[in-house]
């Protein structure tokens, strides 16, 4: 059942259009992550959905009800939602009162307030801090209080705007653990924004890629990461090999794509003559010192241009008639004796390639 729906939602600040015709449907109990670079419009979209801002044009439906309608009781509607802001903000009062304030604003009786607040503090693992001043907590602890404060009112939808931005890895892990627990325990609809792709991947059932104010693609984690529908999404989700080519021949689903005088075989239903971008994730490329004898249809002789070791992996930039970037382990690199200028073979399967139509 659709809980939130936007139709051609746009937002302009003066002449700057920060959201462009966003069409989005969120199901009840779904965990949806908006991913996109900083400044893509994620916060603006969440603020509109939480009724903190009005859209410049378009419609927004909550549970089938048009939110822009004058008949809607906006306060009652707001009380069905909660929002955890990017920067943890606590009020200048103790931890218990911080978490309880949403319930007090709803005029619940004190025994219910006490019980629910204590449950929420337990949920985020902050029960022992209940009497301490919230202002003295660390950033991660403040964010857990903010999450408890947002959850204590049992909202139908919880908005999380970059909940771990600017946090150290330990605090990030703790906040993510709390969120994972909430996702498993409660059936709250969660809409979160993040520029951290792996966080989106870990937490959400479905992702939406918002770039330059446009919702370019929505889908499962696998759809977005393995089959990006355009170059901007591909670049954002870390497809570092985006190679321009033209479909030269077809054999059923197999397409032969001309790339700088070389031919790449990939699965595609695009017609012959179509200009395309060939997308290959670096981790799908296998390097070897002799031509690989496996099932890979694409084998190219390459020359190593650059080697960059990051932790336990090595990024290899090579020229194979076209530039290609691959990632292998340090151990594999040592076994292959990789060095700049060395000739090696790169191979990848036709199924590891995603081909998209090129518009320019």
């Amino acid at each position, binding site marked *: 059942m659709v809980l939130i729906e936007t139709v051609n939602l746009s937002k302009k600040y003066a002449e700057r259009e920060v959201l462009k015709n966003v069409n989005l449907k969120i199901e009840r109990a779904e965990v949806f992550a908006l991913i996109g670079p900083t400044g893509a419009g994620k916060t603006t979209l969440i603020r509109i959905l939480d009724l903190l801002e009005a859209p410049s044009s378009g419609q927004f439906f909550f549970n089938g009800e048009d939110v822009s309608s004058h008949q809607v009781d906006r306060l009652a509607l707001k009380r069905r*939602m909660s929002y955890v802001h990017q920067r943890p903000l606590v009020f200048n009062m103790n931890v218990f009162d911080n978490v309880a304030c949403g319930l007090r604003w709803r005029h619940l009786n004190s025994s219910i307030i006490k019980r629910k607040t204590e449950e929420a503090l337990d949920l985020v693992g902050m029960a022992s801090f209940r009497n301490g001043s919230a202002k003295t907590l660390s950033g991660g602890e403040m964010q857990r209080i903010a999450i408890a404060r947002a959850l204590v009112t049992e909202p139908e939808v919880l908005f999380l705007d970059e909940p771990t931005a600017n946090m150290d890895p330990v605090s990030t892990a703790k906040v993510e653990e709390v969120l994972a627990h909430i996702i498993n325990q409660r059936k709250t609809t969660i809409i979160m924004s993040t520029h951290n792709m792996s966080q989106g991947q870990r937490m959400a059932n479905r992702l939406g890629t918002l770039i330059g104010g446009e919702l370019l693609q929505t889908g499962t984690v696998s759809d977005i990461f393995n089959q990006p529908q355009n170059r901007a999404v591909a670049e954002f989700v870390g497809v570092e090999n985006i190679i321009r080519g033209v479909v030269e021949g077809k054999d059923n689903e197999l397409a032969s794509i001309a790339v700088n005088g070389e031919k790449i075989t990939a699965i595609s239903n695009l017609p012959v003559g179509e200009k395309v971008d060939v997308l290959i994730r670096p981790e799908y490329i296998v390097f070897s010192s002799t031509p690989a004898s496996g099932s890979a249809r694409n084998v190219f002789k390459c020359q190593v241009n650059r080697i960059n070791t990051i932790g336990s992996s090595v990024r290899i930039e090579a020229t194979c008639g076209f530039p290609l970037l691959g990632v292998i382990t340090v151990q594999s690199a040592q076994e292959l004796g990789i060095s700049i200028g060395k000739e090696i073979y790169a191979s990848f399967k036709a199924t590891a390639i995603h081909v998209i139509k090129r518009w320019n």
Partner: protein
Amino acid sequence: MDQILVGFAKAFQLIVSFDPEVMEITGRTLAIAVLSCLVSTLFCIPLGSLIHFRNFRGKRVLINVIQTFYSMPTVVVGLMIFIFFSRVGGPFGVFNLMFTPTIMVIGQVILISPIVLGLTVAALSGVEKGVFETASSLGASRIQATLLVIREARYAILSAVTLGFGRAISEVGLALMIGGNIAGYTRVITTAIAMETSKGNVELSIALGIILIILALLVNIILNRLQQK
């Protein structure tokens, strides 16, 4: 130097002996200053919130005007009140308020309100911008979110009230001009000091001055205690 020591001794004697006249003047001084401060606070906090939360044309100019009135001379306020409340030709003369404690409260409210109002606006501006919005996103109504912002600014607002109280209890020109320093009716510590000094009764003036400072100190201690809560 001897005069100061004698003044201290006299002050001590007046306090421990609960001198009826001094007690009466002290009580009136405190009552007028506290009442003025209370009235001013009661309308300056809502008005300050209105100025802070509403965006309107001329808002910056209005704040500048309020800040200019921080340093308004007490005698100018006295003069204006005299003109408006004078029994001879004053538009509010019919109320017959001149030379009463009531007009002294009105005068002090006018005197200290720019300070309480201006510093309330500044205190609210100092609250983190996200507080109102966070409250709103947690289901607070506009009034509930506004009250939260005021609560967050409580220490700075209390400082504004403390400053207003300090100005009210220490001013003399206004009290003299519109109160008239009538014994047993409108005489307060500052006007009594002015009168006793002009009579050459310096020791008593010093004693009253010390009592005034002790009074201000006690009120400030109470307000500071409230701030720390």
